[in-house]
């Protein structure tokens, strides 16, 4: 199964390139201190707003910090937020969808109405308010200075589509014969839900999760751009764009490069998701 999936995935060239791009980004993020000799938060007012040169590949920002270095350190946070908030969203979505689809009836009705409520929230506005709230509350397990609140908020406002997907899968699978067989040999609800049905819903969850990482990266950068996400001086791709705005007319590189990073990361992940969708769905014809 795994081998076949890989064989099909390999034929999707954009997805392969996407994997290459993401691997490169992750390596650069992990080895940032080795890749770049500069300190991401060290000001150097003598070299403010210098255009890209060999010494400063992407130029310097308004405080003379090396832009490339800040982008590398920023990618640690942007990528981590993307992955972690998606994992939270997929976990919550899977649990809610599984409970609703497996049990049906009253539980299903309540959980799905709750999903409707979350879907009717004006998402961006609520994201802004909840991040503001969490920053002010400064909970011990979600310290305001860290980026944990952002992960938490994005995760808790992004699980709805996964929940609907998983519910639909559970609704159809729970009637299958092998589920009945499992029940026949005395398997309990929890065992059937997670050991027998869950593996068979993996494909759509994996695809939704992959695309979810891209969406989370976009959401984080958007929030940080508006000033409600990760706060300075910690760099992320989004808040770098925010600070670039003031001088972008005469120092356009400060705005171009961070956005280019978001764009390439998101498009790479979207292509990977596309490739996975083709590879995991045996019914889909592969060109």
């Amino acid at each position, binding site marked *: 199964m795994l081998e076949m999936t890989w064989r099909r995935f390999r034929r999707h060239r954009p997805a392969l390139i996407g994997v290459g791009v993401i691997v490169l980004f992750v390596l650069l993020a992990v080895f940032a201190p080795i890749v770049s000799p500069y300190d991401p938060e060290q000001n150097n007012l003598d070299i403010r707003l210098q255009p890209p040169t060999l010494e400063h590949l992407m130029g310097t920002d308004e405080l003379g910090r090396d832009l490339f270095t800040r982008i590398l350190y920023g990618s640690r946070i942007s990528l981590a937020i993307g992955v972690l908030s998606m994992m939270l969203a997929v976990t919550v979505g899977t649990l809610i969808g599984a409970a609703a689809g497996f049990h049906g009836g009253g539980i299903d009705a309540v959980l799905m*109405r709750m999903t*409707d*409520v979350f*879907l*009717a*929230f*004006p*998402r*961006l*506005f*609520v994201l*802004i*308010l*909840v991040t*503001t*709230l969490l920053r*002010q*509350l400064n909970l011990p397990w979600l310290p305001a200075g860290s980026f944990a609140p952002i992960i938490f908020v994005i995760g808790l406002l992004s699980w709805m589509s996964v929940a609907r997907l998983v519910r639909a899968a559970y609704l159809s699978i729970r009637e299958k014969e092998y589920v009945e067989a499992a029940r026949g040999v005395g398997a309990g609800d929890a065992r059937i839900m997670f050991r027998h049905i869950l593996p068979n819903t993996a494909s759509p969850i994996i695809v939704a999760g992959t695309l979810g990482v*891209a969406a989370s990266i*976009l959401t984080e*950068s*958007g929030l940080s*751009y*508006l*000033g*409600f996400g990760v706060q300075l001086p910690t760099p992320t791709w989004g808040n770098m*764009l925010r600070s*670039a*705005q003031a001088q*972008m*007319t*005469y120092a*356009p590189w400060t*705005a*171009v490069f*961070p*956005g280019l990073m*978001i*764009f390439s990361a*998101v*498009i790479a992940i*979207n*292509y990977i998701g*596309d490739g996975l969708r083709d590879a995991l769905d045996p019914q889909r014809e592969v*060109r």
Partner: protein
Amino acid sequence: MTRYIIRRLLQFIPLLFLISVLLFTLLQIIPGGPTAAYANNPEITSEDLARLEQRLGVNAPLPVQYGKWLGNVLRGDWGYSTVTQRPVLREIADRLPNTIYLMGIAFVVALLIAIPMGLIAALRQYSIFDTLTTTIVFAGQSIPIFWLGLVLIIVFHSTLKNPLTGAPLLPGDGMSTLGAPFSIGDYLAHLILPVTMLALYQTAQLTRFMRASMLDVIHQDFIRTAHAKGLKERVVVVRHAFKNAALPLVTILALDLPGLFNGAVFTETIFSWPGMGRLFIERAFLFDYPVLMAILMINAALILFFNLVADVVYALVDPRIRYA
């Protein structure tokens, strides 16, 4: 049908109620709250602040405050902005039309580009045009639109100049030139960049659905039958295929609306467009909670309403669907 619509509308009431309770609670538990705007004002003493809190009733228990808010809203009184002291409804009435104006034009532009593009791409599947369309669609869905806005300003406002006057090629902020006499040309020029920014994602999304839906339809039997009857290609495409392919699009149109709202927030912020999204961002920094609450509720209601519109229109155009 009428009964179905009425039933759905009635379902809105508990849903909106629940949403309003959640959002109201959320706004109230944010420390700082409605008096935060005055807390750092040196001309307001702590006694004044206490009096103000008393008058605003912010020290009452949460359910009491919610009850008061709900009672007022049901009577059409959304309260007063804590920043400008103006009635909330007046604040919103000033901004909402600008947002609708921007979103409406972006929406029409997106439709006008997406429908023919998706249609042609589907009819010539695997052609260069199709490959190009698919690539553009992918890029359009992945680009951070606020960055697109910044790049548009860098290129068309601060870099490219009008060769005759030396002024920026296109205006980069506001709805019209301040102080200039009214001219349609000026208004149109101010629309170009924000509409491009806002319409791109929508165009990508709609093109993708149009193409997929058209591909679905043209491989069905009744299209082959139409061809076999000797109908002209044009007739088959327009009368038979397009009509059926456009059906799912109706739902997508309505369900994509929240996305358009999100996009409008960024567009208005970047282009200093005096709309509702920008109002929200400005007031979120100042904790102007009556205004925030009103904007949140208007958005939630619109999202629910367009969900219903999607279902109803879908049923109206597709006679196979019956709602009891």
